[in-house]
């Protein structure tokens, strides 16, 4: 009995001490954007805990920070949002001496207009907004998959009525419409936006829903045959469909008209509790093997040169994940919008969704 008491006392006394010793990295990340294995590997290396919180859109991240959220060490926003955070003076400059692995990143993804000289940001991974589809159904219907017409042209949509979802995101949907109409995704000319609105309104009666949350599941279950979505999510949908032994697969295709490329980057917010640990994490994620996990396990595009040799050949051969040079020219990153442009877009978006 005495022994037991003594053991319990020792155990109780040691618990808070152990908890105190272990540092915690607070990572505010996209949902499903880092595999368990990678997290584990970093925790073993740094002898610390990684605590992740998640956001579903850049707007959510920006709104949360704007409202005063604190305590995060690393954020992973898309470059447009990085630009916005820089303008708000919300980021801490990176100490490049602590990031030797930054040299692994391909030059094409460094020094972008969003963050000249990468003063604040280090590239993490990429996704492209494209079309995911149920391969069996689309083959049966004999529809083309490499064009935005699949979600915008009523002639094609007639065969897909109620089986299509598009992203519930004003920027992404208008960007897809802009590419289909032959405009740049960053062209905020009101006339062109109105053309996009009209295109969307003509196609809308054929869509099942605006959906940015559950389209992975709807595709996997077979309720939806075509979805406008992010390449990582569509990759996940296929893994799920295979795991559930469905009689179909979920394929994704890059529309020939071009699409939105989202380069996500790691940044450290001002006032981060553990900037030292944050740098260690960023350098860790820039290592080829860890970066390759992002592609092998969740299907992200990869800007890391050193990662390429670790990437599975079948993913390497997938042109939707690694577009060829000609296609790459038609991919655009979304620029941050000013208040007036946002207001115009928001008004059109309300109109599109109301009727």
């Amino acid at each position, binding site marked *: 009995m005495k022994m037991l008491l003594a053991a319990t006392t020792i155990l109780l006394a040691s618990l808070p001490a152990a908890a105190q010793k272990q540092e915690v990295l607070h990572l505010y990340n996209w949902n499903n954007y880092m595999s368990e294995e990678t997290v584990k590997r970093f925790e073993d290396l740094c002898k610390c805990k990684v605590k992740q919180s998640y956001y579903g*859109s850049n*707007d*959510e991240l*920006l*709104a949360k920070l*704007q409202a005063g959220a604190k305590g995060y060490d690393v954020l992973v926003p898309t470059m447009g949002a990085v630009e*916005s955070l820089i*303008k*708000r003076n919300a980021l801490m400059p990176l100490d490049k001496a602590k990031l030797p692995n930054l040299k692994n990143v391909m030059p094409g993804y460094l020094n972008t207009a969003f963050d000249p000289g990468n003063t604040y940001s280090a590239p993490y991974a990429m996704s492209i907004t494209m079309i995911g589809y149920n391969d069996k159904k689309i083959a049966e219907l004999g529809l083309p998959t490499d064009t935005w017409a699949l979600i915008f042209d009523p002639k094609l949509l007639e065969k897909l009525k*109620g089986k299509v979802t598009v992203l*519930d*995101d*004003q*920027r992404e949907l208008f960007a897809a419409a802009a590419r289909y109409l032959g405009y740049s995704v960053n062209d905020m000319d009101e006339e062109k936006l109105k053309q996009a609105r009209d295109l969307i309104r003509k196609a*809308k*009666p054929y*869509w*099942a*829903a*605006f959906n940015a*949350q*559950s389209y992975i599941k709807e595709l996997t*279950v*077979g*309720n939806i045959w075509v979805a406008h979505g992010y390449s990582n999510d569509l990759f996940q949908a296929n893994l799920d469909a295979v795991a559930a032994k469905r009689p179909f697969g979920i394929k994704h295709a890059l529309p020939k008209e071009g699409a939105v490329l989202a380069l996500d980057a790691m940044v450290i917010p001002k006032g981060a509790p553990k900037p030292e640990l944050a740098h260690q994490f960023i350098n860790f994620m820039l290592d080829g093997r860890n970066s390759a996990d992002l592609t092998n396990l969740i299907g992200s595009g990869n800007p890391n040169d050193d990662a390429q040799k670790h990437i599975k050949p079948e993913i390497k051969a997938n042109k939707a994940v690694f577009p060829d040079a000609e296609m790459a020219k038609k991919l655009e990153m979304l620029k941050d919008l*000013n*208040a007036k442009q*946002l*207001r115009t*877009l*928001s*008004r059109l*978006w*309300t*109109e599109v*969704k*109301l*009727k």
Partner: protein
Amino acid sequence: MFGGLAMSPRAARLWISSPPLVYLLVFFAIPALIMVLASFRYAGELGGLAPLVGSGDPDELAGLTLENYQRFFGDSIYLELFLKSFLYASTTTVLCLVLAYPLALTIARSHAKWRDLLVLLVILPFWSNFLIRVYAWMIILGPQSAFTRVFNGALGLAGIEPVALLFSPVAVVIGLVYVHLPFMVLPLYANLEKHDPSLLDAAQDLGAGAWQRFWRVTFPLSLPGVYAGAALVFIPALGIFAIPDILGGTDGLLVGNVIKQQFLDARDWPFGSVLSIVLTVLAVLFAGMAAWVARGQRL
């Protein structure tokens, strides 16, 4: 030592009611005032609010403006939005009332030893998360669910084309009714349970049939419960955004969604505040009306 005991009744009343008053002041009145102020300001270029005092740059937007209200009243689309939300909230309230009344009456008239259990069963859904319950409806209404198949099978027998239940206005109303039903049942039950059964006996002795006893005795007496329930259902249903987001189709947009959009996607706090204020004013009007009518009934 217990100085409070010597307080005048008025002071004691004030003292006792101070915690809720402070709560309302801190968590309702002050935020509402902040929102009113925000609705008269310009949106900041990067979200948030533009400064109240400008730096002197003539291009800079600063200070107070009526522009946000002009935008609201100068565009019929927002009026349509409110009308649509009003319609959804009213439909939900009526359906909740129709479903909740028999249930509340059954519970109130059941044997005392069962009542607590039955009330517990009404509250039971609150034990699991709201979003999980709404997601469950996604599965129930999905095209491959047993429910949808049986439903469409029945339609087929009647010679009607199968319909998609999920992502439709019907799904939104089902979700709204499901989530708000307990808020109608509980005040109704609280009211019905207090009715004196001898009133019904007296009515019967005077020759009233079952329907007359209900319509001329029970129902009028239960009106305060009906109004309380209606306010508890109508007001939250008017501002909800999660259910149309999850279950709604391509035209599931309600005013709650647009408010969320203004704060998140459009980074337009002032306009979001205008929409919220209009919604709050409507809700307060409705609650006031319900309270007023309920008080009138008690006379």
